[in-house]
């Protein structure tokens, strides 16, 4: 009986390993292909297409050189960094008090506030009213036009609220007994304990702002303000329509290589951030999900 159970467990483990390996391959193979495509030389691409493997001597960073060496790249990268940092900071500054307030059970009018918050989650105002609001506030050609509309995400607020609710009430009570007001409780007690959720929600916001594409197109008419995703798209459009633009086909890489390199360039910063805060990630999103 015991032997059979052990054997079952081994089979299960092997099955699980095979299954997870398959899943891993399903994820890795397209990713590998993107990497090969990004580094393939133009002559090999035009002669053979994209092979699965490239010999080490064949790799070229020409597509990256073309993208990173673009005259507008430093400016676009700066814009993306500013939008991401500023957007994340503003979002956290606005989300934390809202989430904390809503997590306070004896907050007067809590239900009404919660209903109003949820209302905006369920019913979006739509593009035109937001456009009118932004242009009415004279925010076109200003990073804030991209940052302010999505600054408070209801989903992120609820996740954070749930985390705050999971913190021991006794800690807050002790601080209040020592004479702390709510702001001091938030500042001195809650925030130091909320590193996981701050990093997790910060990451959510950062990814959102880093990838933001349409609102910059709509509101940032000055091309000096456009972020990286818009520049990369513009480069790809140019490369794919080169027959209409007589002498601009300057590319020393294939369109596919440029696309792949663009994917990697935009993906890498987030790829580096994820492992750094991974240890907080699960904790941040799940703590508070289960209450005692």
């Amino acid at each position, binding site marked *: 009986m015991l032997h059979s159970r052990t054997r079952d467990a081994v089979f299960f483990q092997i099955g699980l390993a095979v299954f997870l390996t398959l899943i891993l391959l399903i994820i890795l193979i397209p990713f590998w292909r993107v990497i090969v495509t990004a580094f393939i030389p133009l002559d090999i691409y035009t002669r053979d297409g994209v092979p699965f493997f490239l010999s080490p001597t064949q790799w070229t960073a020409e597509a990256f050189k073309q993208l990173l060496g673009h005259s507008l790249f430093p400016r676009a990268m700066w814009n993306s960094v500013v939008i991401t940092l500023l957007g994340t900071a503003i979002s956290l500054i606005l989300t934390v008090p809202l989430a904390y307030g809503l997590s306070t059970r004896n907050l007067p009018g809590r239900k009404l506030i919660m209903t109003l918050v949820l209302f905006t989650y369920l019913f979006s105002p739509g593009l035109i009213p937001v*456009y009118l609001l932004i242009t009415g506030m004279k925010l076109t050609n200003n990073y804030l036009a991209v940052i302010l509309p999505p600054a408070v995400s209801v989903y992120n607020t609820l996740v954070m609220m749930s985390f705050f609710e999971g913190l021991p009430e006794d800690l807050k009570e002790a601080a209040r007994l020592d004479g702390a007001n709510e702001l001091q409780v938030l500042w001195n007690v809650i925030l130091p304990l909320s590193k996981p959720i701050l990093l997790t929600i910060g990451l959510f916001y950062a990814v959102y702002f880093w990838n933001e594409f349409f609102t910059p197109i709509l509101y940032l008419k000055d091309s000096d303000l456009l972020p990286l995703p818009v520049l990369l798209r513009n480069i790809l459009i140019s490369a794919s329509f080169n*027959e209409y633009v007589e002498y601009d086909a300057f590319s020393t890489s294939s369109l596919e290589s440029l696309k792949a390199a663009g994917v990697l360039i935009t993906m890498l910063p987030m790829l580096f951030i994820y492992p750094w805060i991974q240890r907080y990630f699960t904790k941040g999103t799940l703590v508070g999900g289960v209450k005692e």
Partner: protein
Amino acid sequence: MKSWKMILVVFVLVLSQILAACGAPAATATEAAPPATEEPTEAPAEPTVEPSPTTPPEPVDIELWAQATVTEAGAPPDDWIAYDVIREELNINLTYVIIPTGEDGEAFINTAAAANELTDLFQAVKANNDNRGALKQLVDLGLVAPVDDLLPLMPERTKTHYNDPLLNSLVTFDGKLYGLAEPPPLPRREGLVIRKDWLDKLELEVPTTPEELLAVAQAFTEQDPDGNGKNDTYGLGGFINGEGLGNRFDFITGAWGLPGVWDFSAPENFGLVVRNEKYPEALAFFKSLVDEKVIDPDWPTLKRDDFRARWKQGLFGIMWEDFAALTNKSNYEPFDTNFPDAEWIPVASLTGPQGDSYYGVYTGRGNIFAVSQTAADAGKGEAIARLLEWIATDGYFLMGFGEEGKNYIIDENGDISTEGLPETEAYSAPERQPFTQMRNQLVFYNSEQEIKARYPTYETINGRTMEPMKFLQFFQSQPWTDGRAVQAILPLANAADFDRFYDEGMLQFVLGQKELNEETWAEYLAGLDALGAADWEASAKQALIDAGLLK
């Protein structure tokens, strides 16, 4: 705990600094421009217009929304000489905003329109290139002003840009001209080409009929035309671009006199081409190309970029291609590197069994610009006309090529050249692209001098002279159907369903998934009618008659 707080305080301080600086870093063109007395700008290459007596004392602010010629290059800088010239000579403060292409561009314009915030002069944009439809939508909303009165204010531009009555009639609604229909990009620029080196090796002649095309394609497929000892070539390559089998195979249905979707051959014949009894014959021939396996089998799903990678890999020897995509140095170079001894030559329109011969359908879709009602109400019409006239006359070279002697020269033949100029300063250099971003939208009108400059002759690796213009001229000399009127036809309400049935049905016949005979063809036509084909044809005909385009 202390360090945590300290970090937060520092963060807020940094944040406040960034916030203070988060507006537009650059001043507007007007603000950034140095006063003329302090730092005089170089005079434009050509003499500029004399300020007219009607020039208002205060500069007029004009904002222009237009797509870029080279999307990746970005907008011209604030100290662009053209801004200074336009301000000094025309008394106009120009703000040039580059708008996105495709769906994003359509969303950009539609959002501004919905908010009644369309700018002074803007490009009508539709993701599916139905620019006329985009304009009509804005006209119906009352957001666009008529421009009839502006044409007399820009006589030279009207001669070079707005001289096509048919294009003008397409932007005329209720008897008023609402759009400025710019000349379409080079018309009839695509064509059929064949590998001459393969023909020579197999001692074959250039095909002139569909049957000959099939025979040559079979030889290209089976007789190792590239001599590499492998069975790795196909006669024909292509991909679907557009409705049905797409316009890239119009040369096949054209041999039966039925290219495209609509029959424009004569007013009495107007309707969907599939109604014509000869259409199944054309499809049967196409099917024979598939059955004989002489066409790259991936053609139904191939994308344009993959198609282009394949001909550069020497996969097939006959194809339909854009002249510039084939012959421009940068586009041809990879192919030239792979096959320095190879040569593509143009093929004339095939002649079908009944003597019909059409290369394709010329739809002539071009950019359409419009003046917002807001701008007209603000009295900016005259200034807009002044600006457009200047772009077509004194500002033409500056806007299209840059500064004479610095970015281009006019050689002894009167041609535009960059000989002797620093590489990075030449108008064709990547660095110069931001300065001529308007060229394909508002400047060029396909003059001979312009085309010569845009598509220069060069030498291939083996020293053969490559003349893109020769290909263009050959393609343009072929018999094309004038289908420009198609722009006046509104899509069906259930266009998605109709298109899917139309496209899939046609593909099924050609791929042999559905037998092609009288009965199945009648069923196919009945299916189209069930989706509103007959009504659509009637309404399309009426629309063309109303617009005076079906005579």
